[in-house]
C-alpha cells in the first residue's frame, strides 16, 4: 500500500491532499491500493469526504498540530498499512514533520517534488534546487517519503467505492512544545499563492504610501500584491506579502515587478512565473535579464499610466 497523509482544514480536504492522492495513484507499479490518514481533531466530518478517495482510511485524533505529533501519527499509520511510500503535501508545515517520519522509517526523503514516477523499486522525482534555479532528477530506493509541491498536480477524483475506516491508537511523544499564541494572517482579496497576476513593489517606490497605486493596479487586474524583503524590512508592507527565498514562492501567469532590482533571493520566489514584467529606471537592473516585457522609466510616471491603460482596457 501507499499511504497519503491527507491535509485538511477541519471540515474539508485541502487541494494539496487531492494532489497528493493523484501522486500516490501514479505509483501503481509499487502498489495498487492507496491508504489515507487524517491527523488532527474532530475528524469525523472530514472522514466522510476522505473515505471516498482511498481503499483504507486511518484516523489519528491527536489534537492541534506539532511536528512531533504529526510524525508519530503518520508513522503509526505507515506501520499499520505496511506502506513503502508515504506522500504528503509540501509547504512549511509538511516539510517540518516529514523529515522526522523519514528518519523513523529509515526512509529516503524527497522534498517538494514537482513530478514523481517509479520503476517499481525506486521513486524518481524532479524538483528545483539552488534557489529554484536548477531542475534536478533524484532517485531513491524504497522506503521513500516525499512531499508534493502544491499546485503541481491534477486533483484526484473519488473512487467508485468507499474505503474502510479505522481509528488509530498513536503513542504520542511527551509534549515538548506548548503553543502560547497563534497569529493567522488575514488577507483580503486573492491569496498570493493562488493569484494569476501578482503585482510586486520594491524599494524603488520610495514610500509605503506609493503602494496605494500598486494595490490599485493589482485590484484592476484581479491580482494580489507582493513585496520585496527591502520593503518588508522597512515596515512598508506585511511579511505575508514577501516573495522570495525567505518569503513565498509564486508562479502566476503574469508577475509584474515595479521598482524591484531582482536579487537572486527575490528571483527564488518568482522565476518560474509564466510571464515576467518589469518597470525599473535602471536599464541594467538584474530583473530585466529574466523579463519578458519591461519598461525602463520612473515608476512614479509609468505606474499611474499603467493604471489608466488598465482601466481603459476594462471599459
Amino acid at each position: 500500500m501507499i499511504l497519503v497523509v491527507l491535509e485538511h482544514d477541519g471540515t474539508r480536504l485541502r487541494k494539496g491532499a487531492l494532489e497528493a492522492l493523484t501522486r500516490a495513484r501514479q505509483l501503481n507499479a509499487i502498489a495498487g491500493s492507496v491508504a489515507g490518514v487524517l491527523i488532527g481533531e474532530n475528524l469525523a466530518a472530514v472522514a466522510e469526504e476522505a473515505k471516498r478517495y482511498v481503499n483504507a482510511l486511518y484516523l489519528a485524533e491527536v489534537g492541534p498540530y506539532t511536528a512531533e505529533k504529526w510524525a508519530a501519527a503518520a508513522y503509526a499509520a505507515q506501520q499499520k498499512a505496511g506502506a513503502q511510500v508515504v506522500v504528503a503535501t509540501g509547504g512549511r508545515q509538511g516539510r517540518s514533520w516529514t523529515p522526522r517520519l523519514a528518519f523513523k522509517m529509515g526512509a529516503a526523503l524527497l522534498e517538494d517534488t514537482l513530478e514523481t514516477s517509479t520503476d517499481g523499486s525506486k521513486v524518481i522525482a524532479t524538483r528545483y534546487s539552488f534557489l529554484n534555479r536548477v531542475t534536478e532528477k533524484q532517485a531513491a530506493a524504497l522506503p521513500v517519503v516525499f512531499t508534493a509541491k502544491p499546485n503541481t498536480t491534477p486533483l484526484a477524483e473519488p473512487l467508485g467505492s468507499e474505503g474502510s475506516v479505522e481509528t488509530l491508537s498513536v503513542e504520542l511523544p511527551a509534549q515538548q512544545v506548548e503553543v502560547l499564541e497563534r497569529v493567522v494572517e488575514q488577507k483580503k482579496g486573492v491569496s498570493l499563492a493562488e493569484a494569476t497576476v501578482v503585482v510586486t513593489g520594491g524599494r524603488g517606490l520610495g514610500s509605503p504610501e506609493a503602494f496605494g497605486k500598486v494595490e490599485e493596479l493589482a485590484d484592476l487586474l484581479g491580482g494580489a500584491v507582493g513585496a520585496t524583503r527591502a520593503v518588508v524590512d522597512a515596515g512598508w508592507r506585511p511579511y505575508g506579502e514577501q516573495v522570495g527565498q525567505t518569503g513565498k514562492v509564486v508562479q502566476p501567469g503574469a508577475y509584474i515587478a515595479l521598482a524591484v532590482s531582482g536579487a537572486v533571493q527575490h528571483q527564488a520566489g518568482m522565476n518560474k512565473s509564466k510571464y515576467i514584467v518589469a518597470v525599473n529606471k535602471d536599464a541594467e537592473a538584474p530583473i530585466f535579464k529574466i523579463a519578458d516585457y519591461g519598461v525602463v522609466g520612473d515608476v512614479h510616471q509609468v505606474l499611474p499610466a499603467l493604471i489608466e491603460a488598465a482601466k481603459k482596457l476594462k471599459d
Partner: protein
Amino acid sequence: MKFIAVIRQVPDNEAKLRIEGGQVNYEGATLILDQMDEWGVEEVIRLKEQHGGEAVIVALGPERFEEAIRTALAMGADRGVHLVTDTPLDPITQAQALADTIRDEAPTLVFTGGQQSDWDSQALGAAIAEALGWPVVTWTTSLELEGEGASAKAKHDLDEGAEVVRVNLPAVFTTQQGLNEPRYPTLPGIMKAKKKEIRKVPIAFEGKVEVLEQTIQERQRLGKVIDGTKDPVAAANELVRLLHEEAKVI
C-alpha cells in the same frame, strides 16, 4: 551553557552556476557560508555573549568546508567540529551522522539554516531533532531563554502567519529572516580564528538519495523592453497592449 550552530558551505548565489555533465560544477565557483546558516552562527554567538558558555560550530562535508567553519569562528564562535567526508549525503543521512557528535557535546540548543541554498532542503534541522529525540522549531524569528536554559520562548513562521511557542530544551531551531543581523568578521577576528580549534572526525556513510541529473531549464524570456524615459504614457499603453493582445495574461 553550550550553543551549537550546524553550518554548510555553498556556492555564492550571486555567482553564475555552471552545469557540466549533468551536474552543477563546483570548480571555480565562489563558495561561502550559507546565508541562512549565518543567522544561526550569529544567534549562538549572541546567546553565548548573553549567558556565558561556548558557541560551537559543527559542519559535515568535504575538506573545503573548513573555510566556512573559519568564517564562523572569525565572527566569534569558539571552536569547530568538522565531520569530514567526500560523499555528498542527503539531509536524513547527515542527521544520522551528526547525531552522535551533537549528543556527546550535550548542548543547550542547536541552530541550523531554515533552507539550504544549494539543495533547497528544509529537512536537516527536523531530521537532527528526530535523531536526538528533541523537539524542533522551524523558521525561528526570535528566541529567548527561560529558567537558566530549561526552556525557550520562540516566535516562528507558519505557512500563513506565525506562532509563539515555549519549547523544552535541548531543542533544534531553524533560522528565518528577522532573527538577527549577522556581524561581519573583523580583521582581529580573522587572525584569532586561525588559531581556534577545529576537531576533524572522518566519517563513512552511504547516501539514500541519488542525484541523476541537474539542468538549468530557464524559460526563454522575450526580453521586450520599452524605453519609457521620454514618453512614459506611451510606454505604459504599449506594455498593457502587449500583455493583453500578445501574452493574453490581462
